[in-house]
């Protein structure tokens, strides 16, 4: 940053031109989906809801529609593929809280997924000697247990930053997997079969939530995702979201501005972990079988890949990224073997050409900010702020005048 040629504070013609330039610069970023974000934000609230409603309806109808070209059949059952995609999407939404909002690189996120899976399976599978509870109750329990682990991991490690934190979390991911192997109660590779599922039977008396029937699982997970998205959106547009982004941007400055950084980092970990646990429990229920083979580091990296691919810090991007990461190997079965190679190359390409991910979106951090911002964007940029012939010290006066003009 130049310290010598800062533009003058007086609202001169040059400064106005600068402002106009910046405005137009902000509007025409280069990229593929850019117009989309800007156009979306320009829409009135009702229209946004209407479009969202349509998108959600289409999403719910996906297992029935089975669109040719999009479908994974005949290689893989389409509703089952959708179920898996939705679970990955949910994981990505959770990981996005940690990595995207708070900027904490967590390479061991699969640990929380594993904790959720094991919680659900140990509380419902007939292979487990412990207390059994109905499957749906394991969802909140899995969230709570994963959250507990998140806090336990967070308190000692969140004093570390950057690379150090990444390495510690990587270690944590491995610890959970290895514990599952060596603790007899967790049954290592043998695992737990017949993990529970939500109740309900159809007209012919068969259970609705079968491991072989993906559609109900997909609808359940989709519903969960929508709820989680709404809650995450509430957090984003509150002091919590602002604290997270502030920490991501400049942790020291955030602390000095009165943000209890440590507390909010632990919260990010805890909330991210609970979503991870929730998705783990859904995964256990849908697959019906849990053993130690599914929670390795590679899966963890795959989750991270989903977030980065979609657009770090963007909820919608995380969903798309998560779904894509699950979808590609299922759709293109011929190349499924090479999926890590492909994701690796894809990541490199994306980092070069689109470092902010497929859907880069800035977080909106104010619950009632839209009206204020719209006032600026809709006001013609040809009416400069404040008068030109203002005396020295005019910046304040100009501000005051403007207020008067708006009143």
């Amino acid at each position, binding site marked *: 940053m130049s310290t010598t040629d800062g533009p*003058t504070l007086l609202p001169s013609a040059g400064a106005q031109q600068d402002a106009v330039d910046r405005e137009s610069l902000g509007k025409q970023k280069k990229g593929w989906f850019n117009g989309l974000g800007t156009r979306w934000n320009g829409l009135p609230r009702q229209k946004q809801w209407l479009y969202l409603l349509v998108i959600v309806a289409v999403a719910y109808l996906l297992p029935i529609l089975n669109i040719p070209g999009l479908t994974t059949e005949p290689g893989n059952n389409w509703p089952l593929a959708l179920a898996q995609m939705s679970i990955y999407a949910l994981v990505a939404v959770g990981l996005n809280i940690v990595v995207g909002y708070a900027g904490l690189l967590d390479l061991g996120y699969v640990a929380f997924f594993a904790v959720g899976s094991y919680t659900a399976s140990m509380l419902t599978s007939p292979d487990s000697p412990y207390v059994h509870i109905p499957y749906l109750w394991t969802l909140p329990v899995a969230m709570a247990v994963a959250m507990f682990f998140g806090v336990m991991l967070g308190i000692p490690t969140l004093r570390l930053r950057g690379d150090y934190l990444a390495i510690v979390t990587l270690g944590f991911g491995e610890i959970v997997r290895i514990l599952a192997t060596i603790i007899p109660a967790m049954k290592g590779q043998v695992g737990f079969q017949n993990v529970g599922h939500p109740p309900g039977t159809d007209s012919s008396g068969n259970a609705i939530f079968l491991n072989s029937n993906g559609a109900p699982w997909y609808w359940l997970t989709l519903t969960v995702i929508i709820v989680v998205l709404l*809650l995450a959106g509430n*957090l984003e547009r509150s002091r919590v979201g602002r604290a997270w982004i*502030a920490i991501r941007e*400049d942790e020291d*400055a955030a602390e000095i501005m009165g943000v209890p950084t440590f507390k909010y980092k632990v919260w990010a970990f805890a909330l991210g972990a609970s979503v991870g646990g929730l998705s783990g429990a859904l995964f256990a229920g849908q697959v019906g079988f849990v053993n130690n083979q599914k929670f390795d580091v590679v899966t963890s990296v795959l989750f991270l890949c989903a977030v980065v691919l979609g657009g770090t810090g963007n909820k919608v991007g995380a969903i798309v990224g998560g779904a894509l990461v699950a979808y590609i190997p299922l759709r293109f079965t011929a190349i499924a073997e090479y999926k890590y190679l492909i994701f690796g190359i894809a990541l490199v390409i994306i980092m070069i050409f689109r470092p902010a991910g497929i859907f880069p979106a800035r977080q909106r*951090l104010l619950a009632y900010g839209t009206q204020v*911002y719209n006032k600026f964007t809709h006001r013609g940029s040809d009416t400069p702020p404040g008068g030109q012939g203002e005396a020295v010290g005019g910046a*304040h006066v100009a501000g005051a005048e403007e*207020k008067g003009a708006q009143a």
Partner: protein
Amino acid sequence: MSEAIEPVIDVEGLREEGVDLALAEQVAPDRDISVKVGDALVEVKNLTMKFGGLTALDDVTFDIKRGEILGLIGPNGAGKTTCFNAMTGVYKPSSGKVLLEGQSLGGLAQHKITRRGLARTFQNIRLFGEMTALENVVVGLDARHRTSVGGALLRLPTHVREEKSSIERGMALLEFVGIADHAHFLSRHLPYGHQRRLEIARALATDPKLLCLDEPAAGFNPAEKEELMTLIRTIRDDGYTVLLIEHDMKLVMGVTDRIVVLEFGKKIADDVPKVIREDPKVVAAYLGEPEDDLA
């Protein structure tokens, strides 16, 4: 906290500076400050700061009176910023203490010191680049907010109230420092001078009892410095107390009520600008040979 004493707002001064009084009222601190105007708000006592073998601050003692603008000056490397950092909790002082309204700030976490009422800006601008100007200010306002994570998650009434008030107060603060029309820009897209002002607005948002400005005019041309001086005076007239680190003698002499001079970590003078200007020690250490156009 003992009985609060209302801040004295210099209405005449504000009017002279051409500030909208309603706006000034909205920006004015509603903090309970228990010391009277003119009494010591912050006391720095025997503050010593050692880095290994280097003594950056050596037994520095001064106080800041409520309602004044205190200048902290000294040549490069004199320990001005170190003094700032030791006061705001960035560094742990080797010995000595800092009292705010008679209570020690030693050992408190930085964010707690901010909540006690000490806010600062940075010499090298440190805004949250991916946030808009308004959001930056609201982060400062959050220091006084009470919403919990649960409250935000479920949008409880406290959260809604605080969010609404923070938009209003945030815009008022931006208007106060003169950049309201840039509220929706990402702070890293703002011009340099606006970024400096935004830092001041963000610090003011934490409702400080003492506002510490670390070289706020660095990189400004004379006209911009003149405007900044007006702004700093306006802030004082609005009831704030200001500690100002500055290089530019003209600015310091023109705006401060009192000046503390540091050299090699030691305090060598502490007086009103007029006396400081004549002080041979200061002249020798900092100002060089006296010149006619110094003021």
